[in-house]
């Protein structure tokens, strides 16, 4: 069965405490190549049958209205896996 991926990230201008803590831990481990870490969510929506335009539109709607909170997050991708 096909899967739709929804990716949600904290808004770039907002502090991401989980990413900041992880960046600090990476630096302590000596992984010096990375200057920043931001952590978001990947949500997999399983679809029975074909992913039609209507199904994708519904995925975009729930991504905007429920799977993300537009006050603090952005939906960065809604795509078929």
């Amino acid at each position: 069965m096909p899967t739709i991926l929804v990716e949600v990230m904290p808004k770039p201008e907002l502090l991401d405490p989980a990413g900041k803590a992880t960046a600090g831990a990476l630096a302590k481990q000596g992984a010096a190549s990375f200057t920043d870490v931001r952590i978001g969510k990947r949500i997999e929506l399983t679809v029975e049958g074909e992913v039609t335009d209507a199904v994708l539109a519904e995925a975009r709607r729930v991504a905007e209205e429920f799977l993300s909170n537009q006050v603090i997050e952005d939906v960065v991708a809604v795509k078929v896996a």
Partner: protein
Amino acid sequence: MGVRIGVVTFPGSLDDRDAQRAVRLAGAEAVPLWHGDHDIQGVDAIVLPGGFSYGDYLRCGAIAAHAPIMAEVIDAANAGMPVLGICNGFQILVEAQLLPGGLIRNDHGGFVCRDQKLRVENASTAWTSAFDEGDEIVVPLKNGEGGYIATDETLDRLEGEGLVAFRYLDANPNGSLRDIAGVTNERGNVVGLMPHPEHATEPGFGPDTADAMRSGVDGLRFFTSVIEGALARV
């Protein structure tokens, strides 16, 4: 007939019984409400209590904001009924878009549990009318995701319209922008805050005061505010 205040229990609510107890200590009848019902049982006001509804899955308060009873809570709030969200209840109110802004993980990444000093910034809401503006109070605070955020534009509007209800004093425990601990809607009937007034309602079990250990009952006035308001409307 006395004032009846409903307290909603969601899966993972933690402080629903404490909120019911605070309601009784303030002199009202506490009415337990169930998340799965479409019935608010004719109450005069509603408390959304603290806890970790749905394990904080997706986002704190996000799933609870879509619980069956929230349809009735949202309708009642929009019709002017006093609704108070404490901690997870505050998170539910912002997720339900009854209050502006959002709440994210504390900036230092840790969980905070302590007695917290607050300043009452708006004493004209349904839940703060027993205070005077500028009152300094102490109530317990305990959260991991209590950082209040909103856009600069929203923050300026909140400040300009007097919608900041409470501000942290002495130290900001979680990185909340502009030290905001709680906000109200324009009408003043919906109030949300991260600290826990229901834990400062009975001598012997509240925060320490200058007079005696654990004697702080500053939280009682949230509930007496709404009781007095309900009696005045009868």
